[in-house]
Structure formats: structure tokens, C-alpha cells
């Protein structure tokens, strides 16, 4: 059967957002929130990409005067901070927000208002950094601001404060998002989707969320310590008063290394979904892939010192970190084998999303191998802080995470919009981006080996670095052009693309069961899952259950391991409180840049907003004896 019209009308009525601007400000629909994240992050990616192109222009000839050193330092700081904190991590969260409930056949996230709060707070961080840039208070010390350079003695003014508070914003948002995603995956799986029947994508998102929960407190702590050194004269990092500059690096990289992997791991989830669908067979080595992601997630917390080999720490420790860092190659290599095996053993076809998977494999492996080189404590002394690292980190982050993301974008675009993207222009964009990227970044390995340090705004003509820098600049320009084609294709297809129907690729997982674009309530019924690939049941009807309320917002909560139905949970309606709470938190963070009193004073509006948020809507107590409800 298909859901009848009256059921659909009823669901629409229950899950509808208020119309107009008010609906925009109060929505708790996970798809709308995710879409906002994605649009914001794509705009930022464009801006940060323009900064990159400007820097490439500056470096294309020695002693260029296009940029002053100050402008160059601001540019790479803004580029790195934006890409790492405001683009990569939020984009992965957005993909989780958008897809996790759909893939679970659930109506919304576990904590809908918290999702809205995450976005608004993230957006506060975006505005903080970029408005600061507009009024010339741009951070200028890179995406990791080591003291003492970032301390009060060497960085007067508020540039470093802006950087530190932007991080606090985005990390509070990311932590809230991670709790939301983890709780949704653990407690809202459809009946029958035991842990063993959970698609790799969901495992990837779950593990990335848990990694966030354990790693991001470190960066919040360390930026808070930096702020308090700057603002109230604590001495965490000042040597003269017993502090230690290297402490900052330990805490930063205890977060920073897991961060790289929690950007990469969702990418492995995308690749797994795409490969399964297009190879038309169940993914080979499901449990190997899951175990690989788990072990990458665990190892990620034991590697941070490999960012600090040149600090001069004890050698025995360095040996350990070398071995642990290289050990990552085992799970990563097995993942690659499993994907290739699935492609090889299936009747695979290769539309644009699959091309991105191939581009990812060919590019990411280079980044992985150069990672092995930098993992060696000895060899890293020649490689770290040179252009070799610039090349390496772009190969793993762009090749390893952005290419899968672009593939995921093309793959799920028809689900989100109901239209197909142009294959032709998709392939053109793919060719330009992958070709331009490799042309732009491969030479940087060689530049690093030719002695070019990173973060230099210029170099002298005698160094012999011109030609390769020019090649790199040309490659970057081509990649940016490809990015524009990609976005243009997405925009054009949004209005003019061919209608896709619910399931254009014959996908294996539950998000393809809903209409395209999915209605606010996602699926009319609760699916019952009996395999890893619930959509591949021979084309028959999907087993579902009814009984989740259609007259009020309600979701199903199930047990953690066996996904057995436990109870029906009320799901939050649209609310303005998340926005108000985010505004209050933003006001406190921004105020604390200027005075420590902003913290106690700023707490009051936050408390008010949170009380409003959590105040349960129930009847007032009546006079007389009260009885608990059954």
C-alpha cells in the first residue's frame, strides 16, 4: 500500500513549520537546518578559496608586492581557520543532520532544538570571524596560534582573541551537534536495525561524533586558557612565571589530530554508501570497514605528538608515536581494499558520484603515503613546516574528505531536490577540480623538498622556487574554476534538472524510501529492517509499522544494541528559544573579548534563554491534592 492522502495531509499539518520569516527563525526540521549549514559552508568555502587564490597569486613570482606581509598572514590564517573550523567539520555535521534521520526512517533528530541551536551558534562564529575581518581585526597567526606569539606580549590588540572565541563558538556548536547525532544513531534506529545491521555511513557518523565529544574539550580548554592569559593575566603559557609554551601544543594537537580524522571518517561513510549502491552488491567486508573506522578513531587519540617531532621531546616517546602513526595505514589500507574489492566484484557503473570515489582513491592515497613519511620522527625533521606539509594536508583533507563530500553531494542531490544534476557538467567539474587540484598541490611536495618553508609571504629569486610556484598557482586557478562549474551545475539543476523520482540510483539504504525531496515528516511509517541493505529486497514492498502518532510530533525510541522498540517520544515543535539562546551565548563570548565581567553578566540572559527553552508546557497545578500521572 502507499500512504493515503488523508494521512499525508495529517502529517503535513503536524510537522509543518510556521510560514514566512518566523518559520525560518524557529524551524527545528533537520533538513532545513542541515541545508543552512551546507549553504553557509559552501559560501565560506568560496571566500576561503578566493583567499587561497590571492595567496597563490602573491607567491607566483618572487618578491611579489601584491600582498603586504600582514595581509598574507591574515589570509592564510583566515583561510585555514575558516576551512578547518567553519567548513570541514560543520559540513560533515550537516551531512549527518540531513541524512541520519532519513537513513533511520525517523521523523527528526533526537534533540531537534539542540540542532537548531548548533546552527545558530555556528553562524555566530562565522559572523564573528568574518565581520572581524571586515573591520580589520583579522586573526593573523595561522590556524593554530602558538603562544608566546599569540600571548599578550607579542600579540596586542584583539586579533588573537577573535580567533580563540571563534573556536569556542564553533566547538560548543560541534559538541552539541555530536551529542545529537550520537543519541539519534544509538537510540532512534528502526526496529531490526541492530548494531550489526547498521550501514557503514551510520557507523562513520557515530564514531566521528564520539571522537568529537572526546577531542573538542581539549581545544575549548586551551583556547580558554589562552584567553585568560591575555585577559586576566594568568600564566599558563608564560615561561617566566612557571608556565610552559609547549603545553599549548600538546592540548591543541590532542584535539587537532582527532579533528583531521573526524573530518576524514564521515568521508569514508560517503564512499561506502556510494560504492555499495553503484556496485550493485552488498559492500564487501562490512565488518572490516566498521572495525577499521573504530580503530582509526581510537588510534587518532594516540598520535598527537607527531605534529610536534621538531619540538625536541624525548626520543623514546617519538618512537612510539612514529609506530602508532604508521599503524593507521593498516585500517586505512584495508578500507581501500574493501572499496576496490566491492567495485571489482560488482557490476559497477560510473556516474559522477563514482568518479569522485575514484578521484578520492587516486588522490587520497598520495596523502596517506606522504603521511607515512611525515610520521617518521626522524624524516619529519626535514619535512615539517615546509610546503611538503602544505601538500600533504591538502591531499588528505581535500582528497580524503572533500572529494568524497563532492561525490556525496552529487549522490544525494536528487534526494534533497528531486532533480538530477547534469552528468556532463558534473564530469567537467570533476575533471577540472581533480586535475587542477593535483596540478596545484603535487608540486608543493617538491617545493617543500627544495626547502621552501610554509607560511612565508615571499621568497627571493635565487631560491629556484618560481616555476613550481607558478604551476601550483595555475593548478589552483583551474580547481577554483572547477568549483564554480560544480556550484553552477547544482544551481542550474535545482530549477532545470531532470526530475529524479524517489530513488534514481537504486540505493541500498532507507533514505531512498522517502519521496524526493523528503517531506517534513520523512517517512509515513516506521520501517522494519532485516538486512544491511533494506532497500534491496527484490523490489517488493517494504515492511513497516504504523502507530507513531500522526496528530502530534512523535518519534520512536529503540534500544541501543538490538533496536527493539521501547517507547514513543514527544518531539519538539518549532521554537525561537534556540535562536535566543545562541544570541545570548554569542553576546557573552563576544563580550568576554573585551572584559572578564562579560562572563558573569552574560550568564543571566543565557540562563533566561535556557529556562525559556526547557520550561515544560503543561497545565498549571490545581488547588488541592495532586496526583502524579500514570
Amino acid at each position, binding site marked *: 500500500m502507499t500512504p493515503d492522502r488523508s494521512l499525508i495531509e495529517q502529517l503535513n499539518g503536524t510537522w509543518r513549520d510556521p510560514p514566512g520569516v518566523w518559520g525560518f527563525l524557529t524551524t527545528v526540521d533537520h533538513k532545513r537546518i542541515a541545508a543552512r549549514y551546507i549553504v553557509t559552508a559552501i559560501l565560506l568555502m568560496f571566500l576561503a578559496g578566493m583567499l587561497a587564490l590571492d595567496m597563490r597569486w602573491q607567491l607566483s613570482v618572487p618578491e611579489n608586492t601584491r600582498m603586504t606581509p600582514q595581509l598574507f598572514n591574515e589570509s592564510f590564517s583566515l583561510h585555514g581557520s575558516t576551512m578547518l573550523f567553519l567548513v570541514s567539520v560543520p559540513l560533515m555535521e550537516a551531512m549527518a543532520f540531513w541524512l541520519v534521520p532519513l537513513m533511520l526512517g525517523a521523523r527528526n533528530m533526537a534533540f531537534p532544538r539542540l540542532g537548531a541551536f548548533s546552527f545558530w551558534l555556528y553562524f555566530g562564529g562565522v559572523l564573528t570571524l568574518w565581520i572581524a575581518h571586515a573591520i580589520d581585526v583579522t586573526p593573523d597567526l595561522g590556524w593554530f596560534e602558538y603562544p608566546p606569539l599569540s600571548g599578550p606580549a607579542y600579540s596586542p590588540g584583539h586579533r588573537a582573541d577573535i580567533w580563540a572565541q571563534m573556536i569556542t563558538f564553533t566547538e560548543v556548536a560541534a559538541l552539541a551537534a555530536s551529542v545529537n547525532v550520537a543519541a539519534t544513531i544509538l537510540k*532512534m534506529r528502526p526496529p531490526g536495525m541492530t548494531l550489526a545491521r547498521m550501514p557503514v555511513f551510520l557507523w562513520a557518523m557515530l564514531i566521528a561524533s564520539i571522537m568529537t565529544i572526546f577531542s573538542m574539550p581539549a581545544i575549548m580548554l586551551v583556547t580558554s586558557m589562552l584567553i585568560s592569559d591575555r585577559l586576566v593575566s*594568568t600564566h599558563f603559557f608564560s615561561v617566566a612565571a612557571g608556565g*610552559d609554551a609547549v603545553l599549548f601544543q600538546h592540548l591543541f594537537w590532542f584535539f587537532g589530530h582527532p579533528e583531521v580524522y573526524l573530518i576524514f571518517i564521515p568521508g569514508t561513510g560517503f564512499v561506502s554508501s556510494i560504492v555499495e549502491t553503484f556496485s550493485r552488491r552488498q559492500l564487501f567486508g562490512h565488518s572490516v570497514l566498521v572495525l577499521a573506522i573504530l580503530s582509526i578513531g581510537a588510534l587518532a587519540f594516540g598520535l598527537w605528538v607527531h605534529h610536534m617531532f621538531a619540538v625536541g621531546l624525548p626520543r623514546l616517546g617519538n618512537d612510539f608515536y612514529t609506530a602508532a602513526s604508521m599503524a593507521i595505514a593498516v585500517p586505512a589500507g584495508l578500507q581501500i581494499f574493501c572499496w576496490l574489492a566491492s567495485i571489482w566484484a560488482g557490476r559497477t557503473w560510473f556516474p559522477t558520484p563514482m568518479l569522485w570515489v575514484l578521484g578520492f582513491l587516486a588522490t587520497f592515497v598520495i596523502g596517506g603515503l606522504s603521511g607515512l613519511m611525515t610520521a617518521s620522527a626522524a624524516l619529519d625533521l626535514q619535512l615539517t613546516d615546509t610546503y611538503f606539509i602544505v601538500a600533504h594536508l591538502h591531499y588528505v583533507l581535500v582528497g580524503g574528505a572533500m572529494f568524497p563530500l563532492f561525490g556525496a553531494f552529487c549522490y544525494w542531490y536528487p534526494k534533497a531536490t528531486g532533480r538530477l544534476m547534469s552528468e556532463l557538467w558534473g564530469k567537467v567539474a570533476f575533471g577540472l577540480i581533480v586535475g587542477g587540484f593535483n596540478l596545484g598541490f603535487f608540486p608543493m611536495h617538491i617545493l617543500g623538498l627544495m626547502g621552501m618553508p610554509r607560511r612565508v609571504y615571499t621568497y627571493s629569486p635565487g631560491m629556484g622556487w618560481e616555476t613550481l610556484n607558478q604551476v601550483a598557482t595555475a593548478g589552483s586557478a583551474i580547481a577554483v574554476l572547477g568549483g564554480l562549474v560544480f556550484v553552477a551545475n547544482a544551481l542550474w539543476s535545482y530549477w532545470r534538472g531532470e526530475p529524479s523520482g524517489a530513488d534514481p540510483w537504486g540505493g541500498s539504504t532507507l533514505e531512498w524510501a522517502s519521496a524526493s525531496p523528503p517531506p517534513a515528516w520523512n517517512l509515513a511509517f516506521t520501517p522494519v529492517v532485516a538486512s544491511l541493505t533494506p532497500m534491496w529486497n527484490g523490489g517488493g514492498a517494504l515492511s513497516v509499522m504504523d502507530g507513531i502518532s500522526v496528530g502530534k510530533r512523535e518519534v520512536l525510541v529503540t534500544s541501543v544494541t538490538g533496536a527493539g522498540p521501547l517507547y514513543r517520544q514527544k518531539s519538539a515543535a518549532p521554537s525561537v528559544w534556540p535562536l535566543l539562546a545562541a544570541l545570548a551565548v554569542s553576546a557573552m563570548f563576544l563580550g568576554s573579548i573585551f572584559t572578564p565581567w562579560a562572563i558573569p553578566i552574560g550568564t543571566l540572559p543565557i540562563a533566561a534563554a535556557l529556562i525559556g527553552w526547557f520550561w515544560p508546557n503543561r497545565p498549571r*497545578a490545581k488547588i488541592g491534592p495532586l496526583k502524579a500521572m500514570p
Partner: protein
Amino acid sequence: MTGARDFEIVGTLANLPTSATGPRHLVWWGNIGFMVIEGTGFALAAAVYLYLMTQTHVWPPKGDVLPGLLWSAIFTVGLLLSEIPNIWVLRCARAKNLAGVRWGTFAMGVIALLLLVPRGFEFAHLGVSWHQDAYGSVIWLLLVLHTVHVVTDWGDTVVLGAWLFTHEVGDDQFADVEDNSNYWTFVVLCWLPVYALIYWAPRAL
């Protein structure tokens, strides 16, 4: 492959309850998530303390007065004793004992407020200012971090109590009381290592 799929209804969820308690409840997991985040924060702050300690020969640095033991002992004993009413409230919430959760939550609000008094004296008797040296900075960091948690839970308890006395209480609110109670236990448990670090590490190590 492009049309919407047919559904076959194989059962109904209509008979399920509409609330749950403990780990069955969705919000319980959210609460745990935030506890893990804050617990990691505490663990890292403790690591900062130990790291800075290993970087110097004399701890605390010469000239710094050791933190006072009296008020911190009063606070610690009081905090530990507060677990008794706290667990009682938790049991009331599980038993859906309305009068119990109302008066218990009220009592917990009063107890947390009273505990802030010795906490205030603790700050006064830390013996060193945060801007004196790195040792001072890190013990202030630990104490402020914990105090923020006490104050947060106190605020939460007061608001919850006010609501409980003025509204009809349903299953979800009993679950809220339970979560609030669990959170207080978390605040108590976090204090023990922090207490050991601030007051006993400089004396014992």
C-alpha cells in the same frame, strides 16, 4: 527504480508507552553525552595541572602559601553528604512520588546554595592569586571549573523546583528530576580528584 516504494504494514507501535526512565529514555543519553564532554574537560584540566607540576622542581613555587584545608574539608564533607538526599530524590523520581520530588528538589536547591558558602571561603583561602604564577593559574582553573558546575546545577535545581511546585507533573518531568539528580552525582564525583589535586598534591607530591 524511480517510483516511490510500496509499504506493507507488518505491525503497530501504537501500544508502546509514551515515556521511559533511566537508560531507556532518550534524554538520559543526551545528559550522559554532556557529562562525558565535561568529564573530559575535567580530566584534561587535571592533566594540565600534572603537566605543569612535572615542569618545575618546586611545587608549589617558593613563596606560595599552600591552600587552606578547613573550608575545603567542610565543602567536601558537605558535598559528599548531599548525595544522601540526592539519591533519595532519585528514588522518589523513579517511584513517581510527587511530594518527594517537590520537597526533595527544594531541599537540594537549598543544600547547593549552602555549599556555595564554604566554596566562597575556599577561594579566599587558596593562598595564591591566579596571576601570581602558573601554579596559581591552574588551581584557580580547577576550582572555577568545578564551581561553574555547582552553580549550573544549583540554577537548574531551583528552576526545576519552582516548576514542580506550580505545575502538573508528568512522567517526563520525573525523568527530568532523575537527570538532574544524576548530574549532581556527576558534580560530586568530579570534585574528588579535583580536591585531591588542589589540596593534597602540593602537600603529598
